[in-house]
């Protein structure tokens, strides 16, 4: 039986079952006919899931609110993620970020799923997220939900160590004009214009345009590292609810920019005498866009259908591998209650991806044009064992991909809420990171070494290369988690999560059979699943409001990873990266003060322990501070001054692995900004 039919059959049987077991609903009541007296006499029912927020979920979740974004002074999404415990954020250069959850950080950190308004922005072929293009009007972001730990059953593939869900406001809430602009020493200039309005009583829209120019960072001696960049974007969103039960969202975005970068590349020994390495500047064009549509139909209370579809396009004329990706994705979801105590969500989806590449001397792929298909289905069942007190959750996702076939990712969770202020949860989950077509096909000629120069002991030049493999299996994690949330008073709450992750089949390199070319020898290294390991850690978030005008937010993370090579692998570098590129401890403390007369003062202190091992180097730990002062002279106008990385002139945070761009050091920056909001 082919996969489509298999999934359709599952869906079919589900929809039949769910139709006949749906409980009766209470939607016909007109509240106007219920005078207050009768309302007070009416017996009401309580449905467990009804008004449950995501923050009551049985998972390690942290929500960045619009206020958090506004008051932190951040100018981009990845920097906002620095406030989340258990998330590692580091800047490689002016336009590149490394972001991951619970370890395995890197520009191509492949164990984190990132969604923007329900659209996956993880680039599966390139094993990561191009954060530099993931931008929007920051004022229009409603919240960013960050889930650490496996989230595959609800959200999808590659949610091995976490899910980041960026949610923008409905156009219903972005009525009127927003104009903001600013600039400073590093943020050379940025401007945003957004207008929202109403097309009909049930339909609202907004349109936006944004442009930014960012400067360069510096090297250890303070010299320009040629990594300045600019990006422009524009988009539109429309939300409509023409009937009481239907709502539609239509959204489209486009971005175009150019970024400077410098590559360290190696010539082939056959083409040139030593030295083989050379630096070359690149100017990379980044263009992308998307169209997104969602239809939601409410069937009854706690029962709804959602159908969404999107298309996205990403083009990058990167020096060593010009690339174009196009994706089409369609997903269906159905939520309903079963009996009085079960809340079920199930769904199915299909994604088609088209990849077009242009090989170079450095990076080569036998198939320059290829396509991928991913079929998926999931179920999530929350069973209330004791109403409002104890719930059991089962979830599973079944996927079929082109490289490893079927993958099952199940999880089980338990949440106990002894009272409104406290909850305790625990979870066990399995998640996988499936290899991509790129993993199977890559030929990466990453280094050439002159004769008799360590690590080359041969009397002739040696070329090193990485080769993909069709034998690759999925990388796998079994995660055990325990957490608690407690509101000690209305002014103090603490959120703690502990985890233990057991990893198998992690991807490293194993030496292949050396061979000779006319002038030199070649040592290939083949991608293989020859590493296992484990990690444990603790994360805590604290919210304290000592006075109505002062709030404090703290986040602390501790984690340790241990890795072991299997089989014939001698890949100490990737083993070292996996075990050593995560700071053991991170601390973030944010203070927000409302000083009166429309003046706010925000301070953000961050301390990050050293990175022990990243591509044979170490990165020093650091402590730094951002500060923002803002003043609202009128209701609609806000002026602000922001200083970032105040404690250092410049400091290194990370280096790139795989793609050899020259890293740079993050600089102290200042900027001023004006925001004008007219409703």
């Amino acid at each position, binding site marked *: 039986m082919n996969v489509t039919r298999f999934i359709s*059959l599952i869906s079919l049987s589900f929809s039949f079952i769910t*139709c006949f077991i749906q409980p*009766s609903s209470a939607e*016909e009541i007109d509240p106007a006919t*219920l005078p207050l007296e009768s309302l007070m006499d009416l017996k*009401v029912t309580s449905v467990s899931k009804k008004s449950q927020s995501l923050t009551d979920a049985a998972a390690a979740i942290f929500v960045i609110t619009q206020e958090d974004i506004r008051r932190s002074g951040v100018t981009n999404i990845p920097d906002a993620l620095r406030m989340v415990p258990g998330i590692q954020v580091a800047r490689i250069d002016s336009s590149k970020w490394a972001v991951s959850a619970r370890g395995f950080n890197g520009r191509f950190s492949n164990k984190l799923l990132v969604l923007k308004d329900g659209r996956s922005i993880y680039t599966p072929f390139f094993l990561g997220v191009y954060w530099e293009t993931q931008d929007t009007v920051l004022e229009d972001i409603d919240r960013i939900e960050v889930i650490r730990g496996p989230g595959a059953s609800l959200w999808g593939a590659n949610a091995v160590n976490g899910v980041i869900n960026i949610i923008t406001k409905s156009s219903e809430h972005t009525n009127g004009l927003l104009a903001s602009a600013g600039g400073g020493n590093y943020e050379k200039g940025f401007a945003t214009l957004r207008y929202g309005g109403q097309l009909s009583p049930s339909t609202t829209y907004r349109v936006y345009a944004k442009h930014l120019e960012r400067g360069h960072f510096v090297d250890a001696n303070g010299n320009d590292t040629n990594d300045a960049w600019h990006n422009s974007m524009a988009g539109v969103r429309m939300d409509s609810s023409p009937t009481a039960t239907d709502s539609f969202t239509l959204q489209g975005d486009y971005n175009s920019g150019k970024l400077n970068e410098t590559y360290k590349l190696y010539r082939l020994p056959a083409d040139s005498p030593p030295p083989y390495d050379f630096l070359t500047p690149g100017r990379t064009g980044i263009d992308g866009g998307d169209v997104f549509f969602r239809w939601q139909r409410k069937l009854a209370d706690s029962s709804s*259908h959602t159908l969404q579809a999107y298309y996205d396009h990403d083009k990058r004329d990167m020096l060593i591998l010009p690339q174009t990706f196009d994706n089409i994705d369609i997903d269906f979801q159905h939520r309903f209650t079963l009996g009085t105590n079960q809340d079920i969500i199930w769904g199915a989806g299909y994604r088609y991806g088209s990849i077009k590449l242009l090989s170079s001397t450095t990076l080569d792929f036998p198939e320059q044009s290829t396509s991928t298909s991913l079929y998926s289905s999931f179920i999530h069942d929350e069973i209330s064992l004791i109403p409002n007190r104890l719930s059991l959750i089962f979830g599973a996702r079944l996927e079929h991909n082109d490289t490893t076939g079927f993958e099952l990712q199940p999880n089980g969770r338990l949440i106990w809420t002894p009272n409104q202020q406290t909850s305790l949860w625990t979870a066990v989950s399995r998640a996988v990171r499936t290899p991509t077509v790129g993993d199977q096909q890559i030929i990466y000629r990453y280094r050439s070494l002159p004769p008799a120069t360590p690590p080359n002991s041969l009397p002739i030049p040696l070329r090193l290369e990485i080769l993909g493999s069709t034998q690759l299996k999925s990388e796998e994690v079994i995660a055990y988690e325990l957490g608690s949330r407690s509101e000690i008073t209305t002014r103090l709450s603490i959120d703690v999560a502990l985890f233990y992750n057991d990893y198998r089949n992690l991807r490293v390199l194993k030496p292949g059979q050396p061979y000779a070319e006319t002038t030199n020898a070649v040592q290939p290294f083949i991608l293989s699943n020859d590493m296992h390991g484990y990690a444990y850690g603790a994360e805590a978030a604290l919210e304290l409001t000592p006075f*109505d005008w002062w709030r404090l937010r703290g986040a602390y993370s501790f984690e340790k990873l241990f890795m072991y090579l299997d089989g014939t692998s001698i890949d100490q570098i990737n083993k070292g990266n996996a075990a050593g590129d995560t700071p053991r401890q991170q601390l973030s403390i944010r203070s927000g003060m409302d000083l009166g007369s429309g003046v706010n003062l925000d301070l953000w202190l961050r301390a990050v322990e050293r990175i022990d091992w990243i591509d044979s180097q170490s990165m020093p730990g650091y402590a730094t501070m951002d500060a923002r002062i803002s003043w609202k002279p009128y209701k609609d106008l806000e002026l602000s001054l922001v200083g970032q990385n105040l404690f250092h002139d410049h400091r290194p945070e990370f280096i790139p692995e795989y793609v050899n761009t020259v890293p740079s050091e993050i600089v102290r920056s200042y900027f001023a900004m004006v925001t004008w909001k007219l409703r």
Partner: protein
Amino acid sequence: MLIPSGRPVIILLFLTALLFCPLTRQLSQASPQLTESQAKAVFVYNTIRYVTWPKTVFKLEDAIEVGVLTKASNDDSWDILKNKSILGRKVIVRKSSDIDDLRSCQIIYIDTTARKDFVRSLHAIRQESILTISDIDNFHMYEGGMITLKVVNSRLNFTVNLATARKSALDISSHLLKLAHEVLR
């Protein structure tokens, strides 16, 4: 062949199944009942009759805006107020997790999911004439909190802090106060 083969057939069957869903639901419709959260929404709607706002607070001439501060974006209890009007004004429900989005409202309901830090939310709107209602325990005891809703023995009851409401230039009629479990003056 027993089972018809081919994708179109399966898709067709699937769509048929979906079509039948609303039908089967109607067949099984039982006597209407309100959930706790719906009852709270209906309560909020009813208060509109018994509260007098300063004329200047209405940003829209023919509508009253009810803000719901909530972190439960999937909560659809407030849909019960969709397309309703009262005293010649259309009721517009705005749901948001950001108090800033709700400043234009005449009533703000703070859901328990937004209880974390609600004191600051109240502080942020302290200078506006907004009726504040919540089901957070002892809401009316906090600065800016006006009406606390509570469910006791499956029945709704409420407590009013009249002094706080008057500070915000709101007038609550005696009819509403009579039904209250307790009134702080």
